[in-house]
C-alpha cells in the first residue's frame, strides 16, 4: 500500500505511461518503416505488394503461401533452391519464363521486416496513380497506427482516472482508519493542482526545460526553412534514374554533359534522349517502377515522341514540338554561384558526393541539405585535387616556406585553405 502511495505521490505513473507509449509507438513505427524501405530498395523493382504481376509475382499473401524457412532460402538464393529440385521453386521458375530472381543481400531480420511490411503494407498499395502534374510526395498517413495510438491513450486515461479514484478511496480509508477526516483532493484536477503546489521546484524546472526545449526546437525548425532535403517531385515524364544510371550503367556525363565544362550540369535536350530511344521505343510493353508505382515504358517513351512531334512509324519529325517542363529538384538561391565544372572537372568530385546514389533512385530526390553549412563543412574536409595540376604547382612555387608550412604542413591542402571559405568564392 505504501508503495502505491509513494507512486501516487511522485506521480511518476504518468511519466511511465507516456514513456511506454512513446516506446511502443516508436517501435511500431520504425519496424514498419524499415520493412517498407527495404522492400523499396530491394524488391520493388520487380515486385508489387499487391497481387499485380510486375517482373515477378505480386507478393500479397506470400507468407501464407510459403513457410518462412522456404522464403528465406528463396530470397537469399533462389537459384540454389531451384537447383535443389524444390517443387514450389521450380513451379515459379517455369511460370516466369525461367528467369531467376537475383539473390538479395538481406539478412533474416530484414526478411522478417519485409514480410511484415508485405502483410501490412498500409494504404499505399492500392492507391491509384496520382495526378501526373502533382508535385512532391504526400506523406502516407498510417491510419491504423493512429487509431491504435488513440485507443491506447484513451485506455491510459481511463487507467489514470481509475487509479486516481482508487488512490483517493484508499486515502479516505486510511484517514478513516487513523480516525481522521480526509481533507486531501478528491478529484483529479484538485489532485493535480496540489501536486503542482507541492512540487514547485520540479514544475519550475519542467517549465524551464520545456521553454528552452521549445526554443531550441523552434531554432532547429527555423534552420530547416528553405531546406528541401528529400524533395522528390514527380516529373512529367517518369524518367527513372535507377534504370538509366543504375541498371543500364549510363555515365552521368553522357546526358549531363555540360557538368564537366559549364556552370550547370544541364538537363539533356530531347535530341540526347533520341540517341537511344529512337531504337528503344518501349514496344515490348515492359513496365517499370516509379515512385512506387508501375508505369508502362511504351507510354512514357511515347511522351518523348509527342514532345518532339516524332512519328516512330515513319521516323519523321513533325513541326509542332513542345518543350518538356521538368521540375527542378535542386534549387539553389540566386545569390549563390555554384559551378559544376569547378567541382567535377577541377575538383574531380563524383556526382554522388552531392547528389547521392542517383543510380538507385527512380525518382531523383534532393539527397543533401544544400545548406551553406553543408557546403563549407565539405570544403573544410575535402582535399584539393592538386596532383599533376600545373596551376597549383605554380601557386606553391610562389609561397614562402612559412606559408607553405601553414597550409601544407599537414600534408593535405583542403579547399578552405585555398580560400574555399571566402564569401566571394560563391557570392558575387
Amino acid at each position, binding site marked *: 500500500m505504501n508503495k502505491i502511495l509513494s507512486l501516487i505521490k511522485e506521480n511518476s505513473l504518468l511519466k511511465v505511461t507516456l514513456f511506454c507509449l512513446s516506446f511502443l509507438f516508436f517501435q511500431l513505427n520504425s519496424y514498419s518503416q524499415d520493412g517498407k524501405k527495404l522492400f523499396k530498395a530491394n524488391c520493388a523493382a520487380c515486385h508489387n505488394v499487391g497481387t499485380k504481376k510486375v517482373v515477378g509475382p505480386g507478393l500479397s499473401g506470400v507468407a501464407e503461401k510459403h513457410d518462412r524457412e522456404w522464403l528465406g532460402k528463396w530470397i537469399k538464393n533462389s537459384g540454389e533452391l531451384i537447383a535443389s529440385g524444390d517443387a514450389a521453386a521450380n513451379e515459379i521458375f517455369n511460370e516466369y519464363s525461367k528467369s531467376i530472381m537475383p539473390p538479395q543481400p538481406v539478412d533474416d531480420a530484414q526478411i522478417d521486416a519485409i514480410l511484415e511490411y508485405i502483410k501490412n503494407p498500409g494504404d499505399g498499395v492500392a492507391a491509384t496513380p496520382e495526378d501526373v502534374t502533382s*508535385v512532391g510526395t504526400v506523406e502516407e498517413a498510417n491510419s491504423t497506427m493512429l487509431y491504435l495510438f488513440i485507443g491506447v491513450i484513451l485506455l491510459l486515461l481511463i487507467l489514470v482516472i481509475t487509479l486516481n479514484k482508487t488512490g483517493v478511496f484508499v486515502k479516505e480509508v486510511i484517514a478513516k482508519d487513523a480516525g481522521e477526516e480526509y481533507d486531501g483532493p478528491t478529484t483529479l484536477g484538485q489532485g493535480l493542482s496540489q501536486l503542482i503546489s507541492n512540487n514547485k521546484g520540479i514544475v519550475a524546472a519542467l517549465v524551464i526545460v520545456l521553454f528552452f526545449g521549445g526554443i531550441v526546437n523552434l531554432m532547429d525548425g*527555423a534552420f530547416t*526553412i*528553405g531546406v*528541401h532535403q528529400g*524533395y522528390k*517531385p514527380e516529373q512529367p515524364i517518369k524518367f527513372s534514374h535507377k534504370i538509366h544510371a543504375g541498371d543500364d550503367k549510363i555515365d552521368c556525363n553522357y546526358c549531363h554533359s*555540360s557538368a564537366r*565544362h*559549364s*556552370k*550547370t550540369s*544541364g*538537363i*539533356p*535536350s*530531347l*535530341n*540526347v534522349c533520341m540517341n537511344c530511344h529512337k531504337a528503344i521505343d518501349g514496344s515490348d510493353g515492359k513496365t517499370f517502377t516509379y515512385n512506387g508505382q508501375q508505369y508502362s515504358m511504351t507510354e512514357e517513351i511515347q511522351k518523348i515522341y509527342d*514532345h*518532339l512531334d516524332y512519328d516512330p512509324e515513319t521516323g519523321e519529325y513533325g513541326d509542332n*514540338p513542345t*518543350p*518538356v*517542363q*521538368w*521540375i*527542378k529538384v535542386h*534549387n539553389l*538561391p*540566386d*545569390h549563390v*554561384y555554384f*559551378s*559544376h*565544372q*569547378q567541382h567535377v*572537372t*577541377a575538383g574531380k568530385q563524383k556526382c554522388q558526393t552531392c547528389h547521392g546514389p542517383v543510380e538507385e533512385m527512380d525518382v531523383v530526390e534532393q539527397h543533401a541539405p544544400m545548406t551553406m553549412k553543408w557546403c563549407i563543412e565539405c570544403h573544410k574536409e575535402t582535399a584539393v585535387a592538386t596532383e*599533376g*595540376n*600545373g*596551376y*597549383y604547382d*605554380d*601557386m606553391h612555387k*610562389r*609561397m*614562402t616556406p612559412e*606559408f607553405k608550412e601553414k597550409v601544407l604542413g599537414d600534408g593535405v591542402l583542403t579547399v578552405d585553405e*585555398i*580560400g574555399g571559405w*571566402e*564569401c*566571394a*568564392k560563391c*557570392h*558575387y
Partner: protein
Amino acid sequence: MANSKKYWKGLEQLEETAEFQAMSTQEFPEQLPVEEFLGDEDSLESSNTSRRDFLKYLGFGVAAASLAACETPVTKAIPYLNKPEEITPGLANYYASTYYDGHDYAAILVKTREGRPIHITGNTESTLTQGAVNARINSSVLSLYDSNRLKSPMMNGEEATWATLDNRLGKELKAAKNVRVLTNSIISPSANAILREFATQGVEAEEGSDAVNNVISYDAISYSGMITANEESFSVKTLPSYNFEKAKTIVSVGADFMGNWLDTQTYITDYAEARKPDNKWMSKHFQFEASMSLTGSNADVRVPVKPSEYGTILTSLLKAVGGNVSATKTKYDHQITDAAKALKASKGASIVICGSNDKNAQVIVNAINDQLGNYGNTIDLENHSNTKQGVDSEVAALIADMNAGKVDALLINGVDPVFTIGDTFKKALTKVKTTVCFATKMNDTAAACKYVAATNHQLESWSDAEPVKGYFSLGQPTISPLFDTRQAEDCFLKWSGNDKSYDEYLKENWEATIFPQTGGVMFTDFWNKTLHDGVLELSVAASEIALTFNGNVSNAAAAIAKIKGGSMEIELNQNMAVGAGVGADNPWLQEMPDPLTKITWENYVTMNPSEMREKGYNTQFGQKEAMNVVNITVGKNTIENLPVVPQPGQARGTVGLALGYGKKVGNQEEISGQNAYPLVASTKDGNSYYGNVTLTDVDVADYYVACTQVHQTIMGRDAIIRETTLDVYKEGNKADFNPSHTLIDHKDGNAVNVLTKEFDLWGAQPVENIGHRWGMSIDLNACTGCSSCVTSCISENNIAVIGKDEVRRARSMHWMRIDRYYASEHQDAGDIAGTLGKTKEAEDVGTTFGYMAMEDPSDNPLVVHQPMMCQHCNHAGCETVCPVAATTHSNEGLNMMAYNRCIGTRYCANNCAYKVRRFNWYNYIAYNKFTDFNPSQDDLGRMVLNPDVVVRSRGVMEKCSMCVQRIQEGKLDAKKAGAKVVDGAIQTACSASCPTNAITFGDINDTKSAVRAGVDHDRSYRVIEEKGQEPNIYYQTKVRNLASSKTAKSHGHS
C-alpha cells in the same frame, strides 16, 4: 614662397563653399531620406499609431514573412528540344561583329549567354580600332532590348504586315519615276552594291540619269567642309585617315578627335601609344577650342578661343610654319608660335586638324599639312576613311527637288532628318508621294513617313564594312530578330526583285569582289576564318602618285578674314554619352556622367564661370542649388529653358551646347534633354555648328541638374593626383616626380624621415608570396576620361539605373567613376603666411590662396581624369567596421562584399577613404519610381543582365568587386587546363573596355605580369597612400609634355 598645384573637382571646392565643406566632411553626400521612409512629418505626428501597434505590425510582418519563406515555389527547368551545338547553358559565347551607326565605327566582340547578347567589347584583331570601343558602342547592347522598339512594320501610322507593305509599296515604287534614297554614309561594300542595284532599277524609265546620284549620303554631323576642301585641294572627294601613332606634334583647332570627330576609335589607341613618356618621344598636343572637350582636357597646351577665331588661328599657323599667306595678328600669337615651332621641328610627323565644317578653314588646314609634308606620312588620302560621305550641297539639292515635286518616292535609311534637319525637311517630305523610313524605333522621321520598315537592331543583322580602304570587317547576328523586323538591306533586295536573303548576297558579294583580292584558294575556309576573326585587312599598296596641293589659300584666307565674331558665340558639340543622338534613348548613357561637367540626363549651356559670375548666375552645383535657366537663340531659332552650367576652361564670350538630346518621339518621357539641332545654321556653304547667340534669362525656379562632380570627394588629402612634366620625368629622379611618403620620426635624438610603411598599425598581413594578389595599375597619363569603362562596368555588373532625381541626390550607383580634377597653380597660403614671411601679394589678398590676385584659375585649368573604384585595400577601413562581417578580405587581395549578409548599416561607407561604396536606397528593379527608365523593370530589358552577377536589392551596400566573376572563371579555366593563369587572360570589364589601355589588371604576385611592371614602375603611387590602407590599385603619375618650371614638380607629402 612655395608654389604648388591645387586640384579641385569643381568650383565649389575651389571656392570652398559652405555646402562643399559640409559635404566633404560628411561621410555621405546623400541627404538621409528619413522623410521618405516615415512619410510626411505632420502626418506622422498626427498619426495615432502607437508604439504598441507598431510592434504588433512588426511582429505580424515578421511572422508573415517567415511563413511566406516556408512556401517553396516549384521551379521548372525547360531544356532545349534540340540543343544547338555551340550553345551550352552557363557558358558564354563570343562572336566577332561590327558596329557602325553612321557616327561611330568599331570592330566588336559580342558576348552572348544562352543566346542573348549581354556585353560588347572591342575586337583586338582589328589593327584599325585595336579593341577600342566607346561608351556608346558598349551600351548599344541595351538598345537591343528597348521595349520601345518597333515590333512590326507600319503603314500610315498603323501596324501592318510585311506582305501588305511589300505589295503596296512595290506597286508605288513601280509607278514612281524618280526614286531617291537618303541614307547615312554607307561603309558596307555589299549594302552599297545593293543600293546601286536598287537605284538603277528605279531610274530605268528615265534616260541618261546617273543612278548613283539617286543615293544621297547624309551625316547628322556634317564633314562636308572637309570633303569639299579635299576635293578642291587634291581632287579627291574623301576624308583622309590619320595615324596619330606617328604624330609627334598634334594641333587641333576645335576638333574633338578623341571624343566625337570622325573615326575616334581608330585614333584614340594610337594617340595613347604616342603619349607614353617611356618611349623615345612623347607627342605634344596643342588644342585651340571654345568649349572644354574631352580632347582639350587631355592636351598639353589648351587655348580657349572663340569659334569665329578658328579660321584666323589657322591662317596665322600656316604663316608661322612658312606658308605664303597674309595673316592678321591674334591674341594667341604666343601659343601659335609655340605650336608652329613644334610643328616645324617634326615635319612629316605631325597632324593639324580642325573641327570646323567651313571649307575655307579646311583648305588652310590642308595647306598647313601639305607645307609640313604630313600627307603620305601621318595623313593618308589614298587609304581614305569612308565613314563620313555626306555633302551638304547634295542634301540641300535633294530638299529642293522634293519641294519642287521632282521626287516621287523617298526611302530614308539610318538617319532621322526630321529630327536633325528639322522643319525644312519635314515640309519637303509632305511633297513626296511615297515616303519610306527604315527605323528600329519610332522617330520623328518615321512618324512623318507613310511607310515605316521596322529594321533589325545591329546585333540582329548581317553587315560588312570598309571604314578605311582595305580594312574590312564582318558583322553577324548574335540573336534572332526579337520582333517582326527585317533589316534594310533585305528590304532593298526584295524591293528590287532579288529573292536572295542579305546573308547570301553578302557572302556572294565577298566571294566575287573581296575574296579574289586575297589570293586565297578555298572561299569557304576564307569566309569561315574572316567571320570568326571579324576583320580582314588587305595590304593596300600605297600608290606613289604624289598629291599636289591645289587649294586656293588666298581665297580661303580672304573668306576667313571676313568672318566676324559676336560678343557671345555658340559651339554646338557632341558629348561622350549621346554623340550625334544615338545614345539619347539609352538609360545607361543618359546616366553616365559627362567626362567634363559630370552632369547626367540632359544637355545644358556651358559657360565660363567668371563670365557667369559677372552675369550673376549661380556657379555652384548641389542637391538644392537651382541653376539659372535661359532661352537660347541662334538666328531665328530658339530653344527654351536650358540650364546654364559653369565650365572651367570655356572660352570667354562663348557657350557650348550638346547636340543629340531631346528625342521625344518613340521614347519615354524621362529621356530628357532638348534638341539643339534647330540651332545648326544651314547656309549655302553647308552646315555650321558655330554662330552668334543671344541668351535670354528665364525665370524658372528650382531647376536642378544632376551633377556627380563633387559627390564623392576625397577630403583633405594631398596625394590623390600626381603629375609632372616630361623633362622632369626624363631626368629620372623619382624624388622629383613621385616622392615616397615619409613621416618624421626621432631616432637617437635626430629627426629622420621614415617611410610611412614603417608606421603600420596593422599586424603584418602577408600579401606577397601567398598565391594570387589581384590588382590594377592605372596610368593617369593614358586615361583620357572617355568613360567607356563606366558603361562597360554597368553592363558587366548589372548596375542599376536610378534616374535624374536620384543622381541629383548623390545616390549614383556606378561602381566605376572617373574623377575629373581641374588643376591650377597657386601659392600655398601656409607658406605665404608662415615662415617665408608675407609677400606684398599675400598681404593684398589676405587669406587663403594667392591665386586670387592672378588670373582666375577656372579660366583655363589643366585637367586630370582619374578612374576611381574600390581600391581593394589590404588594410581596408570598411572591413573592420562591418558589424556582421559582410565585407571581408580574400587571400587573393580582394575586398569581398556578401550582399545577402549585409544589413545596411553603411558603416563601411562611412569608413571608406575613397568613397567608392554605393548603397541601394531602393529596390530599383521593382519600385515604381524607376519604372520609366530602369530597363530591368521590363522583361525585355532584363535580358541584358549578366546572369553571373547578382542583382542587388534594397538596403544593401555594393561596390566594385574587381569583376570577381571573371577572376573565378579565369582561375577555373587555368585549373582545368592544369596550367598557371596566363597574364592578360583575365580582364576586368573596365580594363577590357579601356581604349587606351590605361587600366592594366592582373596578378601582382606574378612577377612577370604587366600589372607587376606597372606597380614597380617609378611613376607608380597609390592614392592617399600615407594613410596606410595599402590598396591593391596603383596609379601612375601623369606626365605632361610641358617645359618644367619650378612648380611642375610633383606635389609630394613633406
